[in-house]
């Protein structure tokens, strides 16, 4: 039994703690609110974290795939470049391999039977192999034969550059630089 009278409301009771101040009363409410908010945000963040990790891994996988495909293409490009390099070198060489036999035949056919070709010299330029230096020495001929020779060579798609002719008695010397002309 308490030693205080139950109906005595005025005497301060010493066996009870004091009431909390007003500001402290919101602490439990605040605690629940924070607990709920934290649970909500942590749940959302954890989901976002997992999603972001999945997105990151997927992006890395895609990037690796693209890099692998690009490496294949780069390798193909290197192969094509090397092939082109070889092809260009061969093409450059082949450009200077145009046959000379048709020129000799054309010249021989251009002159009449009574004219002698004492010398026919075709010399390919070492620096510009597409150019051929031509020298024809004709005996018992006229300048008309020179024109025929030039025209027959032109028909073979060779253009005659800086032609020169020297006549000494029956001997005619015809020099010219032949350059192949594309159609």
């Amino acid at each position, binding site marked *: 039994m308490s030693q205080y009278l139950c109906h005595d409301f005025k005497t301060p009771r010493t066996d009870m703690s004091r009431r909390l101040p007003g500001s402290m009363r919101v602490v439990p409410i605040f605690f629940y609110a924070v607990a709920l908010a934290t649970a909500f945000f942590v749940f959302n963040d954890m989901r976002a974290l997992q999603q972001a990790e999945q997105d*990151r891994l997927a992006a890395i996988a895609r990037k690796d795939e693209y890099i692998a495909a690009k490496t294949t293409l780069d390798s193909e490009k290197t192969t094509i470049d090397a092939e082109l390099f070889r092809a260009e070198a*061969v093409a450059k060489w082949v450009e200077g391999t145009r046959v000379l036999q048709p020129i000799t035949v054309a010249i021989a056919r251009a002159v009449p039977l009574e004219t002698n070709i004492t010398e026919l010299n075709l010399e390919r330029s070492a620096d510009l192999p597409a150019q051929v230096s031509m020298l024809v020495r004709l005996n018992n001929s006229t300048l008309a034969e020179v024109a025929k020779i030039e025209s027959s060579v032109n028909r073979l798609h060779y253009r005659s550059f800086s032609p020169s002719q020297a006549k000494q008695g029956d001997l005619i010397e015809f020099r010219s630089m032949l350059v192949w002309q594309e159609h």
Partner: protein
Amino acid sequence: MNGKKLACVVLMIFIGIATYAGQIVHQKAAAKRTEAETAESDANAAKSELEIAETRTTKLRYDSDELRRFLTAWTPHIDRVQTQSEVEESILASLRNASMLILSQKFEVRDNRSTPVIPKIVRASLVLEDDYAKTLNWVGELERRLPLARMMNCRITGGENGRQVHAEITLEIPLINLLAEMPVVASATTKKPSA
């Protein structure tokens, strides 16, 4: 401090811990999202590079098609003459087939430094004397048989009698290496000589 106040303080500590933990998780999520965005942007950049490489390679494939077909067409001729002895054999066989009279023959190999694709060139110097038509036919046959041969000099003069001609012919035949690699381009950062 009474028990109620102590309980309040404990609750406030819990509130602080929960808030801190929430923030940590949020920061981690944000950092992970940033990482994912970075990875995504890297993937997009790689995709763009791939598309550029695809376009470039397709264009190169298209542009180089004719030249590559040219090389493919010439490859059998190139493979046929790969050594000096094969060149000699080919020329001498054509001379034998045409029964040409050979006054002199000389074969020499020269190094070619202009391109690694043609490291060596065989130079054949021939002096022949035979019938006019036969000689010209042989020249044509030789140029047909060795389409890579470059006739550097062809000097035809009169022979011993009216029907014969004296021919001095110089040919260059390349020994092509189709496995040659492209030379590495010299670095642009070469040191300039000091003044």
